[in-house]
C-alpha cells in the first residue's frame, strides 16, 4: 500500500500560543514521519494540538500561534525555513488542505468554478483561463459532480457535495500530501462513508499521502495506515493502525479506544476517561497523563517519559509502564 520512503519528516516540532502574560506550549517537540502514499492519522481529544500541528506543516500558523522550534523536512528541505517565493510554490503544489466544515471552507459569494480556477491560474499561469477551466471540469468528474454545475454557488450544493468540491480543489495541482482536518465530522454517517471511500479510491489512483486528523478513532483505524496519538501537545504513541486497535501500548490510547463502542459483539458499558486534559499553562511534572492514568506510578509523577521504539511491535510509545 505504501512505500518506506519518507515524504515528510517532522522533528522536534514546537508550537506556542503567545498571550499577553503567558505562553502556552500547544505542541511540545513532536517527531513523526509521513511516508509516500501513506495515510497517517493524528488522533486525540479536542485541544491536544492535532490541528495546530496540521497548520504548522502547511505554514498557516498565525499569531498568537508561533512555531518556536523544530524542523519539517519535505524531501530534505526544511519547510519552516522557506522564503516567500519558495513558500508560494510549496503551497497547494506540494501540500493542500481539506477543512472540517465544507460550508465555511468555500467563499459563499463567488462561484465554485472561480475557487478552483484561481488556484490553478495562480500556480500554473501558462495554462490560461481556458486550460484552468478544463482542468476544473476534469476535477469535478474526478469527484463525481457533473461539470455543468461548475458555475453554481456553494449554497446550491449539499454538504456532501461541498466536501467533494473541497477535495477537488485540494487535488487541483496534484500535491504530494493532503492534510485533512476532520474532513467528515460535519457530515452524517452515510455521507461520511461515501466521502471516505472516495478519498481511499483517489488515493489509490493518484498516490498522494494523507495526514488525517479526527477524534473518531474508529474511522481513523479503518482509513489510516499508521496513527499517532496525541495528548496535551505530545505524541504518546505512534503505531500501525492495526496495532492501535489490537495492541495499544499506551494507557491513553487504550482509554481512547475504550471510549468507542464496538460495532459487533456484546453491549459494553462505555468508559470515558475520567478527568480533563491539563491546562497548558500549568502542566503537571512528569508524565502529562499521570493525573488521569489508572496505572500511574511514582516515577510517572516526576520523570517525563520519552517516545521509545518497540521494533517487535513496529510501534513507538512514551510510557514508563513499558520499561
Amino acid at each position, binding site marked *: 500500500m505504501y512505500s518506506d520512503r519518507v515524504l515528510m519528516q517532522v522533528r522536534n516540532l514546537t508550537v506556542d500560543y503567545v498571550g499577553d502574560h503567558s505562553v502556552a506550549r500547544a505542541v511540545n517537540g513532536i517527531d513523526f514521519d509521513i511516508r509516500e502514499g501513506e495515510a497517517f492519522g493524528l488522533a486525540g481529544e479536542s485541544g491536544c494540538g492535532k490541528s495546530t500541528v496540521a497548520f504548522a506543516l502547511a505554514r*498557516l500558523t498565525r499569531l498568537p500561534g508561533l512555531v518556536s522550534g523544530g524542523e519539517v523536512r519535505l524531501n530534505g528541505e526544511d519547510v519552516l525555513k522557506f522564503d516567500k517565493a519558495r513558500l508560494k510554490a510549496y503551497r497547494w503544489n506540494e501540500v493542500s*488542505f481539506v477543512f472540517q466544515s465544507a460550508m465555511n471552507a468555500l*467563499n*459563499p*459569494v463567488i462561484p465554485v468554478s472561480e475557487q478552483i480556477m484561481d488556484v490553478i491560474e495562480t500556480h500554473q499561469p501558462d495554462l490560461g483561463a481556458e486550460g484552468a477551466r478544463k482542468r476544473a471540469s476534469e476535477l469535478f468528474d474526478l469527484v463525481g459532480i457533473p461539470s455543468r454545475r461548475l458555475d453554481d454557488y456553494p449554497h446550491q450544493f449539499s454538504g456532501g457535495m461541498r466536501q467533494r468540491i473541497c477535495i477537488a480543489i485540494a487535488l487541483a495541482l496534484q500535491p504530494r500530501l493532503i492534510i485533512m482536518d476532520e474532513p467528515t465530522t460535519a457530515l452524517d454517517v452515510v455521507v461520511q462513508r461515501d466521502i471516505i471511500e472516495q478519498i481511499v479510491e483517489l488515493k489509490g489512483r493518484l498516490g498522494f499521502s494523507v495526514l488525517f486528523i479526527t477524534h473518531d478513532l474508529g474511522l481513523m483505524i479503518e482509513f489510516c495506515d499508521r496513527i499517532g496519538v496525541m495528548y496535551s501537545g505530545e505524541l504518546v504513541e505512534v503505531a500501525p493502525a492495526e496495532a492501535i486497535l489490537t495492541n495499544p501500548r499506551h494507557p491513553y490510547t487504550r482509554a481512547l479506544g475504550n471510549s468507542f463502542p464496538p460495532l459487533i459483539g456484546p453491549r459494553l458499558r462505555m468508559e470515558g476517561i475520567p478527568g480533563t486534559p491539563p491546562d497548558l499553562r500549568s502542566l503537571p511534572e512528569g508524565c502529562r497523563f499521570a493525573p488521569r492514568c489508572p496505572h500511574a506510578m511514582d516515577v510517572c509523577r516526576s520523570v517525563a517519559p520519552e517516545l521509545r521504539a518497540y521494533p517487535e511491535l513496529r510501534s513507538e510509545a512514551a510510557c514508563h509502564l513499558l520499561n
Partner: protein
Amino acid sequence: MIYILRRVAFYLAAFFVAVTLNFFIPRIMPGDPSARIIASFQGRLNDAQVEAIRASYGTTGSLWEQYIGYVGQVLRMDFGISTVQFPEPTSSLLFYGATWTLVLVGIAITLAFLIGTMMGIHAAWNRGGFFDSVFTPINVMLNAFTPAVVALLLFYAFSLQLQWFPLGRAHSTGLVPSWDPQFIGNVLYHATLPVLSILIVSFGGWHLGMRNVMINLLNEDFVILARAKGLSDRRIRYRYVARNAILPQITSLALSVGFLLGGALVTEQVFNYPGLGKFTVTAIESRDYSFIQAQLLLLTMSALVANLLSDIANVILDPRLRKG
C-alpha cells in the same frame, strides 16, 4: 427576481401608508392653510373668493373627497401652491431644493463610503499596525462630532477668515445653470465646504464598519483556505474578504440616506445652501404647510427608494438571495 418584485410591492404599500398618514396628520391639527390665507385678508374677501382659495388648497368637500383628491395630486407629483410663496407651485420649489441637496449629499455620501470603506479594508488587513492604530481611533473620534460643529468651524475658518471659499449659495449669481465645465466647476467650488463638513463626520462610520466585519471574516475557513492555496494577498483581501464584508455595508448605506438628508439640513443652514433642508427650515418658520407636507413625503420616498436600491444591490452581490 421574485424577491425583487416582493420588495417593490412592499415599498409601494409602505409609500401608500406614508401618503395616507401625511394626509391625515396635518388635518388632525387645528386650523388649515387656507384659513390662514383667508384670515390674512382680514374679511376683505367675498364668499366666492373664499371658496376659490379653499378649492386651490384642497380644503373643500368631505374628508374622503379631500383624501381622494390628495392621492391623485401626489401621483401627479402636484403638491399644490405654496402657502407662503403664493402663487409659486410647491413642486417647483421642492424639486429645485432637492436637486441641490442631491448634489451635496450625493457627493458626500459617495466619497464618505469609498474613503471609509477603503480605509477600513486597509486597517483590517494590517490590524494592529501603524495605519490601524493611528487612523482607527481618529476616525472614530471624527465620527462622534456633530455636523453643526464641523460646519461652523469650517465656515468660520475658510469662508470668513481665510476667505478661500464663498459665503453661500450653490453657484455664483449671474451664472445660468447648464452642463458646461465652467458652471460645474463653480458648483463644485461652492459645494466643497458643505460636502467636507458632511464627509468629515460620516466616513469614520464606514471605516469602522468595514474594519470590524473584515476582521471577523479573517478567521473564516474559506479565508484560511485561500491563504493555504497560495493566492496573492491582493486576491484574498478583495475577492475573499472585502467581497463578503461589503454586503452589510450596502445595507447600512441605504439606512444612512434618510439620516443624511436630515443631517444636510444643518449644513445647508450654515452654508446658506439652497437645498431641501434650507427650504424646510424656512417653510417651518413661515408655516408653509404644503411644502412641509411635500418635503416629508419626498424624504419618505427617498428612504424607500434607497432601501429598494440596496435590496437590488444585495441581490446582485449576494447569490444566496437569488432563487433557483
